[in-house]
């Protein structure tokens, strides 16, 4: 596995991870603050 491939895998994993956590956090706050 090349360095670029390894970096791409990490990036993809991070994008998914952050997207999901952000979605959960945003709508938990929106719900909790009665928006």
């Amino acid at each position, binding site marked *: 596995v090349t360095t670029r491939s390894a970096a791409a895998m990490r990036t993809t994993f991070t994008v998914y991870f952050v997207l*999901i956590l952000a979605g959960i956090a945003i709508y938990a706050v*929106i719900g909790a603050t*009665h928006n």
Partner: protein
Amino acid sequence: MRRWGFEQGLSLFFLAIFLLSLLGQSLAGVRVYNEEQLAHGGEAISWSRYLASSHFGGDVMENWQSEFLQFTTFILATVWFVQRGSNESKPLEDVGLESDERQQVGRFSHPRSPRWARVNDWRRRVYENSLLIVMLAMFFGSWLAQSLANWTQFNNDQTEHGEPVVTWLSYLVTSEFWNRTLQNWQSEFLAVGTMAVFTIYLRQRGSPESKPVGSAHETTGASG
């Protein structure tokens, strides 16, 4: 760049159709919301305001939580349950947590093994369950977010109808919350069970979700 796209193709494809579906849901959702508002003498809201609403958030989160629950139960159930002939099952004799040698951990690890798989302490206990832990956390997180967003929406409806608002804990025991929750769970469990059963007899050439086309019906867990 083309190589990069090829190697990340599966995740990029699903990310793209996820974002397109979410966009479509938000556009359809704001129309439904505004039609209801106008029918009840309320005011229409903008699309961007709708994106930041509990109405949209609740709809998104109730589907997310059921997907993460689906994978949480699938990951855990396939350790301890098998299905003869299914591609979704491992071979019947492998039921359980399997040997360290098979799992390439501790003294059976190799130089390219993840660092936490090579050690023999709490870090390995965490790492060998990390997929389940993260999926479970995402399930509870999105279920919590669903409950908060649905609760706010529920109270908005209560207020519009001149009914008293309820606390979050009270909302958690309403049939409204459990109707929204369980209607998603049942479909996920059916879908997983269907995959487990259908892959006994049905095939898709080229897919790792299927056994090889010529594989015998009684062969269990034949794909990599």
